[in-house]
């Protein structure tokens, strides 16, 4: 059962990520990215991270992607224009460098089952709310508090940047 689920979620994640990068319309890009996030939540669940899998759906597929879709709606974007002939070189180099990086990462990650072991049938580490919460409020208390300050800074920064009257505004 686990292998079938793994190949389903992995295939779904990679396929929709590829569609996200190649699709012209930003709205469809956002929808394909949401599908990728759902597939990744499934992979997290297979690895025994139940809480993070739920948080992935709520925060990424929920909150963050709603923000993206709202901004796409606000900006009223048209489809991306085709690159002029001189700029084709730029995107060709981009694909080549990404492929080189991808091959390097694949070679490292493919180091072998003997090094990395297998996922046993019973869930390996169970990242339940209880265990994560206990660690968050004991060992990781200071990072947790600093993260709350960071989120507050993010809110204030987003409000200031988003609401400021700019001098050249038409």
């Amino acid at each position: 059962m686990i292998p079938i689920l793994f190949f389903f979620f992995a295939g779904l994640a990679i396929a929709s990520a590829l569609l996200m990068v190649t699709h012209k319309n930003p709205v469809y890009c956002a929808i394909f990215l949401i599908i990728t996030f759902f597939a990744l939540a499934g992979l997290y669940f297979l690895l025994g991270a139940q809480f993070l899998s739920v948080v992935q759906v709520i925060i990424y597929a929920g909150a963050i992607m709603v923000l993206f879709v709202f901004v796409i709606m606000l900006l009223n974007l048209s489809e991306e224009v085709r690159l002029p002939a001189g700029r084709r070189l730029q995107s060709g180099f981009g694909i080549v460098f990404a492929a080189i990086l991808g091959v390097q990462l694949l070679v490292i990650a493919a180091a072998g089952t003997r090094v990395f072991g297998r996922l046993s049938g019973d869930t390996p580490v169970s990242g339940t709310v209880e265990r994560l919460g206990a660690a968050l409020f004991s060992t990781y208390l200071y990072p947790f508090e600093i993260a709350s300050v960071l989120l507050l800074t993010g809110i204030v920064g987003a409000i200031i940047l988003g609401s400021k009257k700019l001098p050249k505004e038409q």
Partner: protein
Amino acid sequence: MNAIPLNFFLLVAAVLFAIGVAGVLVRRNALVILMSIELMLNAVNLTFITFAAKWQALDGQLFVFFIMAVAAAEVAVGLAVIISVFRLRGTVHVDEINLLKG
């Protein structure tokens, strides 16, 4: 027991990261570039959770938790910057935002 080798998860993460890099380098729409950055962050999260499963430790999952918090703040500020740029220049096409070009 029919078990999946853990490095298969790492392979998926590597492929997703490379796709994200390609998106940042090739796409010219600032919003889609931000989405590709999110994809790369998620690939790294998958790597963290895989290693948490390998070492039977919870710390990797806690790192993912903090990465999600940072990603949420980053997206909020990044989208505010994009809205601000769109108001000023009327476009989110990164080749046309070239005020710093000499």
